[in-house]
């Protein structure tokens, strides 16, 4: 697939890349009643970024990325509710570390396989995590969910309020950090090698690049970011439920990313935004038929617009430019 992005020699931030941040800040001031939805979108953007790292750049197809998100969410939750660790930044770091740990252990085991086998292994892992969370009721609350998650004010100053203002800005700040990190990874020699892995791993072997370890490394990085995103969800809601794990959650994330466009950083921005907004609006009118709309959209995207929404935008821009 040649529409996916890859290494670029020019790593300066182009001016359109500041747009998403401006829009997010504008939303904070102009749409104060939508900040709860907004925070959710920001979290899923970070989550989708982590997936794009392995899917779009390293070519690992996974339906089980929710394992790392969910693990991070529960780490933060359990620390807050059971171990009395209430500082949000500590919870966040712990969750990211948890994601990293799980990522490297599972990645090292499964990344020797590819294709359907890898897909199944990712599915199995997130399903096992779900079942563990379900059974460990004393720790995780099981199916009832984990309540009593206490999150202290950030830096002792900013309390999580009813309107979701603190949560929104907190998630935005963390997304910024995550984005900067992902960008750094992609536009680096390491990132270039990832593109090489995806496009032609045989060649990569031939030039002596350590394919397996690079895959494990990027997988671990991705799991770390996903774990952090999970913690953000727990902190924003002061609650964790089993729905953060399992393959349906993993599948939903995949759909969001595809809609936006895989293998280009901003696909991860556009996808969750469009998906969650559409879900919010359409599900109010037709909750039963939301599925139908998403299904049709997916089929159309695959058949006609493989680059997702950004891919369509690219084609439109190219046409405009060629006419000018």
């Amino acid at each position, binding site marked *: 697939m040649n529409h996916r992005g890859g290494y670029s020699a020019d790593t300066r931030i182009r001016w359109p890349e500041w747009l998403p941040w401006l829009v997010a800040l504008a939303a904070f001031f102009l749409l104060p*009643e*939508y900040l*709860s*939805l907004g925070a*959710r979108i920001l979290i899923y953007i970070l989550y989708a970024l982590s997936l794009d790292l392995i899917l779009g750049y390293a070519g690992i197809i996974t339906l089980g990325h929710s394992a790392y998100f969910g693990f991070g969410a529960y780490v933060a939750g359990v620390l807050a509710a059971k171990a009395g660790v209430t500082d949000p930044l500590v919870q966040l770091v712990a969750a990211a570390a948890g994601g990293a740990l799980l990522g490297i252990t599972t990645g090292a085991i499964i990344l020797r396989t590819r294709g359907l086998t890898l897909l199944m292994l990712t599915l199995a892992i997130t399903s096992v995590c779900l*079942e563990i969370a*379900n*059974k460990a*009721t004393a720790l995780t*609350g*099981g*199916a*009832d*969910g984990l*309540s009593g998650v206490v999150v202290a004010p950030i830096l002792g100053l900013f309390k999580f309020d*009813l*309107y*979701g203002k603190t949560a929104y800005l907190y998630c935005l700040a963390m997304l910024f950090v995550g984005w900067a990190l992902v960008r750094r990874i992609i536009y680096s020699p390491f990132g270039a090698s990832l593109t090489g892995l995806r496009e032609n791993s045989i060649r990569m072997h031939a030039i002596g690049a350590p394919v397996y370890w690079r895959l494990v490394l990027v997988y671990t990085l991705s799991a770390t970011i996903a774990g952090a995103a999970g913690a953000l*969800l727990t902190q*924003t*809601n*002061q*609650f*964790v*439920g*089993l*729905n*953060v794990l399992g393959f349906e959650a993993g599948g939903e994330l995949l759909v969001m990313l595809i809609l936006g466009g895989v293998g280009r950083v901003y696909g991860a921005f556009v996808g969750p935004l469009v998906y969650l907004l559409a879900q919010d609006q359409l*599900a*109010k009118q037709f*909750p*039963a038929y*939301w*599925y139908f709309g998403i299904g049709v959209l997916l089929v159309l995207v695959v058949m006609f617009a493989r680059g997702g929404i950004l891919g369509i935008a690219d084609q439109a821009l190219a046409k405009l430019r060629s006419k000018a």
Partner: protein
Amino acid sequence: MRFRAALRAALAAACGLALAAPVAAQTIKIGSVLTLSGPNATLGENMDKAIKLYMKTHELLPPGVKIDLITRDDGGPNPDKAKQLVQELIVRDKIQFLTGLTWTPNAMSTAALCTEAKVPMFIMNAGTSVITTMSPYIARFSFTLWQSTYPLGEWAGKKYKTAYIAVSDFGPGHDSEAAFEKGFTDGGGTIVGKVRIPLANPDFVPFMQRAKDAKPDVVFAFVPAGKQATAIMKAYGDLGMDKAGIKFIGPGDLVTDEELPNMGDVPLGVLTVHHYSAAATRAANKAFISAWKKEYGPNSTPSFMSVGAWDAMDAIYYVIREQNGKIDPDKTMALLRNYKNPNSPRGPISIDPETRDIVQDEYLREVRKVNGQLANVEIETIATAVKDPWKEFNQKK
């Protein structure tokens, strides 16, 4: 000249309208968070139908007061989604009451919001005992698992000597296991074995086989209502357990009224304890059923979830009437603490002033054929005015 006449006429008309206008046109916004999509959509649909039916058939509001019902879909047990929806309902739509809440995690994640924003929550379904302790603005109109299972256990312990417990391996399953065990042993019986069945499980046969091998007098089962209940019922039938002399009992979730038609003849003779059966013969229920069938078709049946929704709406209307449309959250909760409804389709209900939880009667029912169809016939009122036993036991600690 004509202009002035017209102006005068217009002014007169305006004055007339102003005088004739309703006293205080008040709209009370109520948010309803239900599951309307996904694998559990039936649950939310049953509740939503009951809500709409109640609103259609009751006009008992003070003059000039309207209800604006805002329904949102949580898609299942998604506490983060539910929290976001409730946050928006409170902040954006400015609801005064929150209701619905099919699932425990969804209710639990939104409890703190209701406390902070002072929005009374009328729980229509979620059944885990501890929920009502999470906010002083919560009142529950549905049930708790212990309410039906503990009396069942006690009754069974007196009647049978040995029991085997088979429950689904998740929170409510563990609750019902504990409740039945305590009840059964308090009643004098012995538990000969237990098994926890994974929630995502298509085949119940191996677990029921274990139960059968232990040769108990009775098997107690709790699984999520609906297709899992049908599956475990089939397993009971396929293994010939009734022929082996093993009785099958459980809370009403095992044989919900809308699922019974799917079970064939296997459930005949199964005894359950629950707070509501669609086959109940009291007048209030007959009226409820006939209104339901008239609106939704002769093949449609309400379930215990529908009744939970119906009674919660009754309480909502009650507090609106008592406050004449001017809602104060604390006054609402004070009113609810003393709420009694002797004429619910399920029998007499009230709210416990201390715990704000539902107090209701529990009935022993047997599955029998009525007019050619299976129904849960209430044969005995096994316990009256039952308060949530779990809270009672845990207070003593």
